[in-house]
């Protein structure tokens, strides 16, 4: 049974190893799970999944496997009208009453019965002990009490007895296919860290000293090395205006939050596409601009260049001189971006637009070609892929 589950996990995209499965079996054999499903779930998670970003995926596969009729349940959730389940009354039972409620047998029967009952029932219901609704003692519905109950549409567990913790999907916001949150992006950016020794030699290099001393026939020969610093330099160019505004706020916030991770982090703005100048302060964008040529001279080729923009515009803005929506540009945007790419061999473009829409927008396709296919979606996975490219 667990082998089946194991392959389910692997098919679902998790990569537990055989040793981890054996560990899980070992734990089960030791009997600390006390034959409880919850405990089994905790143990399986602790031994098979080693990354909290995958907890949510695990929860879903676990649910699908041990329910076996996940699809049926999905249908149920959508079929039960919201107002049936809206809480109207609270049911408080005494302990004796609770004890009286008989569990209905195995889980399969429970689900089977639920499906049957759903077919029979076609109106809102509250209280009582058979129909699906709120505040009753039937095994189905919300805000009620039955030790083996199936909860439908209830926020959180009230009696802490619901069979399925994994249904809460508490780790959903740690899932790495969701959009970036401050925490997520920090973790992703940390992968860019690279330590290097640079600057004044002020640390004693013990190994080298010993080595040199030994070669020096035992006379002390002190060796010094510079301290280790994070040597990554980042040049960030952000698209502002129109649809990009809310994305830019997130990016800025998070890049500056992570700026302590880098030796240098410089950021500049552009509108829609790169032309002959960029600016640093959005409120003074018309007065204080830096020319793109100066920029490439100011920041050396060891900077990593990251563009953030939706690249959604008219194709003229990329390929024709004078195509810019804001001003008359003597040379086409494509020429300018090519110059920047020539200066900075390590560069990527992050695009907040969903990846599956990229092919329908010609300007995204063109930008992507200009970038040599180094365009990544602004999700945690995309960022991680992009950053790998920057190394």
């Amino acid at each position: 049974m667990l082998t089946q589950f194991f392959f389910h996990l692997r098919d679902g995209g998790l990569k537990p190893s055989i040793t981890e499965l054996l560990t899980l079996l070992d734990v089960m054999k030791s009997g600390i799970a006390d034959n409880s499903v919850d405990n089994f779930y905790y143990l399986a998670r602790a031994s098979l999944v080693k990354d909290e970003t995958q907890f949510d995926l695990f929860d879903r596969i676990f649910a699908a496997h041990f329910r076996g009729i996940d699809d049926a349940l999905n249908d149920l959730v959508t079929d039960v009208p919201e107002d049936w389940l809206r809480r109207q009354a609270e049911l408080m039972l005494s302990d004796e009453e609770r004890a009286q409620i008989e569990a209905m047998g195995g889980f399969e029967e429970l689900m089977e019965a639920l499906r049957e009952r759903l077919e029979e029932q076609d109106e809102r219901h509250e209280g009582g002990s058979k129909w699906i609704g709120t505040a009753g003692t039937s095994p189905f519905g919300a805000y009620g009490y039955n030790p083996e109950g199936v909860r439908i549409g209830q926020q959180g567990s009230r009696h802490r007895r619901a069979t399925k913790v994994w249904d809460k999907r508490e780790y959903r916001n740690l899932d790495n296919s969701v959009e970036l949150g401050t925490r997520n992006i920090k973790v992703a950016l940390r992968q860019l860290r690279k330590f290097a020794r640079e600057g004044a030699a002020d640390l004693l290099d013990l190994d080298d000293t010993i080595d040199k001393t030994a070669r020096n026939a035992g006379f002390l020969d002190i060796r010094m090395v510079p301290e280790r610093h994070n040597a990554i330099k980042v040049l960030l160019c952000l698209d502002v205006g129109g649809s990009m505004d809310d994305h830019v706020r997130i990016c800025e916030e998070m890049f500056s939050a992570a700026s302590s991770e880098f030796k240098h982090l410089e950021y500049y703005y552009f509108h829609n596409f790169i032309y002959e100048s960029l600016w640093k302060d959005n409120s003074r964008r018309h007065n204080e601009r830096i020319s793109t040529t100066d920029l490439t001279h100011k920041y050396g080729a060891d900077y990593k260049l990251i563009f953030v923009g939706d690249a959604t515009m008219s194709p003229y803005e990329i390929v024709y001189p004078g195509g810019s929506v804001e001003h008359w540009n003597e040379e086409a945007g494509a020429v300018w971006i090519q110059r920047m790419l020539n200066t900075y061999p390590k560069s990527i473009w992050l695009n907040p637009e969903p990846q599956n829409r990229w092919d329908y927008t010609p300007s995204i396709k063109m930008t992507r070609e200009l970038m040599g296919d180094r365009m990544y979606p602004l999700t945690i996975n995309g960022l991680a892929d992009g950053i790998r490219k920057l190394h």
Partner: protein
Amino acid sequence: MSVQKFTGTNSYIATDDLTMAVNAAVTLQRPILIKGEPGTGKTQLAIEVAKSLGRPLHEWHIKSTTKAQQGLYEYDAVARLRDSQLGDERVHDIGNYILRGNVWEAFDSEEPPVLLIDEIDKADIEFPNDLLRELDRMEFFVYETKQLVKARHRPIIIITSNNEKELPDAFLRRCFFHYIKFPDKVTMQKIVDVHFPGLKKALLKESLDAFYKLRDVPGLKKKPSTSELLDWIKLLLAEDIPPEALRENASGKAMPPLYGALLKNEQDVHLFEKLVFLDRRSRPQ
């Protein structure tokens, strides 16, 4: 041998999933890796496990310059060099210059110990790989003295990480894993109860409300965590602040008293002040 079980202690609230993970690690004598937001009690866990199982605790705190070798042993070549130049007798026995690390101490312990490897992600990226054999077989070889050090009792190894670096797969496969998620209100209430048993109900409720409200403020760089909440309550008690004062603040009229314990970042304080100000202005007088 009956297996001892960890169930949390009177000063530490462990959730069900955490207890299960720890017990699995204790039973199978395998390392357990703990991750979670800063301040959710990762390091504290090791201390509490040692306390509740009555075992000695060995702590190994990792820094960015720590090498795996340092946990096992170090060969003090400089001391030996000095002794050789001074003509000391000790110089002939290389064993005199082998300094034991925390892992060795733990392996050598008379009773089964608990070994805490704290903040493993601070170290170099290869660090966990260098400890694979030691964690798996619980033994290592001292090359200088040709001696094999084996653990007398396999220690319970608790490893914490703040997620600064990805850990290698080979390492992860050898561990159990648990992610301490931020406690919900009910758990948090229990945690506070455990730390401040005499706390007035009203004060507790108001402070928790104010705390969760603060955590919900969008855009905070560093959200206050459990340990900061506990510090804050300690201060509130010391200053004898009435619960009503907190309620006033929870409704956004002013900064919560002693907010320095909760917000550790100047920008966050500014942001919060601004929000409070805006809120007050938009309120009808």
